[in-house]
């Protein structure tokens, strides 16, 4: 943990070298296609100008989904603006009902947390995150540091925390305080970091503060669902105004102070969860999106296997922090790359995405017992996945980088069991008792979930049958012919 903190310290120091937060006399009005004209206070604009945040302009919010949904070219920076705006709206909604709960410099701390919440993302957002979480220093931090217990699958939150609480970032906060006449002591990097990882020091007293940034229906979710659906063209409705109106804080003795909603707000939350499922089936798990995601990850695998032969922007990715030094552009530019790595990257740039050679699902695998669990849980063991790919590639006489096995993780509806609903009378209930997300999850797994074996188009005929046999041997399952046949059927969404 100490080593990771030192590495983050070096990164922040490098990123902020020579930068002085500009001071603004007036705020700025920024136009956003979702939220309209959004006003940012001068202090907020100073933080937005920070190179750690500006870097997010060069990171796609939805990775290479842009190859499938051409207008989904929005960036993490756009999303950051939306989160800051939603956080301000949530603050105002809480202040209307409980003015005593958010005062002093607290609103600024919350907005800064919103602005910094994604600065720990690597290139292509969640695509690189799938790799980052496997680094020993990250795994150990997430597992052993109690502070990070809420961000198990989201190491970028832990990295954002470490950035926000680094000694090199502290002068930025101090300068903000000095320039805008605020109290230095009352802008706490520790509190900002806690909001980012969704864990306040005394959750029962101040949990509602982190709920705004990292909670069950937080400013982040309210923005990404609207934004991802808007920019992909997938038609969804998130009634943010109504959600804000019904949102409040649980108060009273012996009741943890957390965000909650009225019963009248439930349909809007249901709508959000429904949207989440749609985003998974239509975008995040779209087979073309998954292919592109796998190919991106393979770039870093090639770098690893090449020893010191390959680098991106001078980084060899021996440490997780290396991902923070690079952006999407650094990864996909062929300039400075050579050999197989360069040709692989050029294929991605030309959108020569791999095709499906095998579909793994409940339809295409006859065996439905613990052996199928072993197969679908293979994604939790990258070593095992790699060995599978090596076996298939060896039999197909092609490089291991041409055979990609993908077992995506299904959607979680954790929100339903963590969000409390204020009933007209009687005790509050978790959202999961009001409607049945469990059945949704089962139906998703039953019908929509698919794993794949991908390979270049000209290898599909060869790799499909080989992959089928290898999976049957390795997992003792029966894979049906449909696993290969489904690959050649046109997909309406593609």
């Amino acid at each position, binding site marked *: 943990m100490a080593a990771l903190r030192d590495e983050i310290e070096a990164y922040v120091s490098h990123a902020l070298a020579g930068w002085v937060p500009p001071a603004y006399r007036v705020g700025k009005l920024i136009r956003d296609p979702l939220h309209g004209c959004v006003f940012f206070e001068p202090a907020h604009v100073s933080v937005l100008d920070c190179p750690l945040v500006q870097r997010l302009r060069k990171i796609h919010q939805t990775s290479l989904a842009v190859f499938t949904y051409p207008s989904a070219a929005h960036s993490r920076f756009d999303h950051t603006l939306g989160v800051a705006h939603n956080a301000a709206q949530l603050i105002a909604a809480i202040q209307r009902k409980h003015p005593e709960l958010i005062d002093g410099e607290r609103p600024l701390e919350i907005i800064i947390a919103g602005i910094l919440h994604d600065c720990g993302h690597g290139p292509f957002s969640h695509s690189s995150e799938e790799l980052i979480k496997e680094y*020993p220093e990250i795994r150990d931090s997430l597992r052993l540091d109690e502070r990070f217990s809420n961000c198990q699958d989201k190491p970028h939150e832990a990295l954002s925390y470490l950035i926000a609480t680094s000694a090199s970032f502290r002068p930025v906060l101090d300068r903000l305080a000095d320039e805008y006449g605020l109290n230095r002591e009352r802008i706490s990097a520790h509190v900002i970091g806690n909001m980012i990882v969704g864990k306040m020091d005394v959750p029962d007293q101040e949990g509602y503060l982190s709920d705004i940034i990292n909670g069950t229906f937080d400013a982040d979710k309210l923005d990404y669902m609207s934004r991802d659906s808007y920019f992909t063209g997938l038609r969804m409705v998130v009634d943010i105004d109504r959600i804000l109106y019904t949102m409040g804080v649980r108060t009273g003795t012996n009741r943890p102070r957390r965000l909650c909603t009225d019963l009248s707000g439930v349909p809007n939350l249901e709508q959000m969860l429904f949207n989440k499922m749609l985003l998974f089936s239509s975008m995040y798990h779209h087979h073309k999106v998954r292919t592109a995601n796998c190919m991106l990850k393979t770039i870093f695998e090639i770098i690893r296997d090449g020893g010191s032969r390959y680098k991106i922007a001078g980084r060899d990715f021996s440490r997780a922090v290396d991902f923070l030094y690079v952006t999407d552009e650094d990864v996909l530019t062929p300039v400075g790359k050579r050999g197989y790595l360069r040709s692989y990257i050029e294929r991605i740039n030309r959108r020569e995405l791999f095709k499906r050679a095998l579909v793994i699902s409940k339809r295409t695998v006859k065996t439905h*017992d613990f052996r199928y669990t072993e197969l679908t849980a293979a994604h939790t*063991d990258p*070593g095992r996945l790699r060995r599978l790919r090596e076996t298939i590639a060896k039999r197909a006489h092609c490089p291991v980088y041409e055979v990609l096995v993908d077992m995506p993780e*299904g959607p979680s509806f954790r929100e339903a069991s963590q969000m409390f609903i204020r009933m007209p009378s009687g005790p509050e209930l978790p959202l999961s008792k009001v409607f049945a997300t469990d059945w949704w999850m089962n139906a998703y*797994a039953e019908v929509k979930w698919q794993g794949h074996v991908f390979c270049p188009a000209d290898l599909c005929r060869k790799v499909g049958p080989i992959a089928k046999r290898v999976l049957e041997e390795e997992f003792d399952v029966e894979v049906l012919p449909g696993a290969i046949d489904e690959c050649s059927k046109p997909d309406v969404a593609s």
Partner: protein
Amino acid sequence: MPRTRASASREGMPPHRLVAGVLGYMKRDRFSGSAQDIHTAFAGLQREEPLLFTEFVFSSGENFPYSKALERALSELMHSDVIKAFGEINPGYLTYLIPVGQRRRIRRFLEQEYCRRPQLLQKLRRLARVFEASCPPTG
């Protein structure tokens, strides 16, 4: 880039096998509870055998101790029909059935895979007893 981890290098065992083991060694074929009951019960098991549950992190400061790894493991087991969930009136409180054949299959798998670690299997049997006491067949 770090070398990827393999299941053999884990101190404990992969989450889906651990959860399957606890459920597979139960004497009963069913248990009931809400997400809160089940996560709380497994958080208790982790306190009993921390070295076995190294892959599980239960969040604190939430409404209940929640583990992403546990949710994922349960979901994978349901996905495979190893566990079947059913409920009537209250969607947040379900009964989970692990049919006899599925339990036999789990035990056979684990006993082959971990035949050199009988103590581990013994621990699973004991944890199954504890879990049964936490999540009875009906509420």
